[in-house]
């Protein structure tokens, strides 16, 4: 207790002693209602549950955002990213037809054989790349 409190409590407020005792006696007169306890505990339980769900949703959103940021180039430019990484493994029917049509310049050249030759050449290129990689 500070000196100030001591002075107040012992000099100027002495006259209120009896009044203080009357007020003090009424301290326990008012009681909480019976439903305050269960409602408070239920509210606390709901708040904790809500906070847990918010945390989980936040963590999930963070993971999704991180994945999206890390894989963003492939999401935006999927064809370019695929070509850059594995150019030799991309096989399209359009390319095979184009190679076959280049062989069909001579009128006696059959289109089926042109396709066979284009395919054989493609497999040969792939085999060379595979040998080089090994």
């Amino acid at each position: 207790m500070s000196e100030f409190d001591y002075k107040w409590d012992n000099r100027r407020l002495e006259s209120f002693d009896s009044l203080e005792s009357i007020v003090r006696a009424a301290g326990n007169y008012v009681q909480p209602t019976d439903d305050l306890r269960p409602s408070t505990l239920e509210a606390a339980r709901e708040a904790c549950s809500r906070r847990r769900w918010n945390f989980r949703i936040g963590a999930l959103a963070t993971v999704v955002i991180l994945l999206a940021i890390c894989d963003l180039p492939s999401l935006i430019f999927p064809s370019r990213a695929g070509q850059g990484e594995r150019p030799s493994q991309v096989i399209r029917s359009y390319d095979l037809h184009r190679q076959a049509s280049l062989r069909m310049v001579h009128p006696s050249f059959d289109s089926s054989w042109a396709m066979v030759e284009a395919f054989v050449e493609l497999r040969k290129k792939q085999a060379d790349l595979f040998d080089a990689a090994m």
Partner: protein
Amino acid sequence: MRMAESGVSALAGLFDLTSQRLVRYAATITRNQHDAEDAVQAALVRVAGHASLLFQADYPWPYLLRMVRNEALVIVRRKRRWSPLANLSDLLTRRLVDELEQEESHRAVWSALRSLPTDQAEVVVLKIWEDMTFAQIGEILGLSAHTVASRYRYAMEKLSRKLTPADMHSHRHAPQRYRGLA
């Protein structure tokens, strides 16, 4: 510490220990028991969610009182449900058989407290019912000890005019003439 470890389950123990004192303090501010209980509930729910707020405080009990006070002030500002008259109809009171003769006295005290300005009434409540010093009350209310002491003196002077011991004695036998009774 138990609050931090077991969360909501420990809140029941804290509620049993503190609810009555918190409600009577909040009722001094809100002037309505329903709003006071809303304030106490909001404060205790916050404690359950952030137990570290309480157990890391230097003085947990004044800290909890301040939390309840803040919640009560929020409710008062939002609802503007002031009842300046000394109407005690909202209060849930305890009536023990051996204290029936004191009930009029208790009602008169509560009625007189409600007739005081809030800033004076809460000083009286903290000083007398919580046994706090003026310095401790000042920390809760954000005031200097001198200001708190002045408010206490003004409040007690007003209360003494409403609740003099002579009146208390005479009105105990004639409660219908009790000054300050609702």
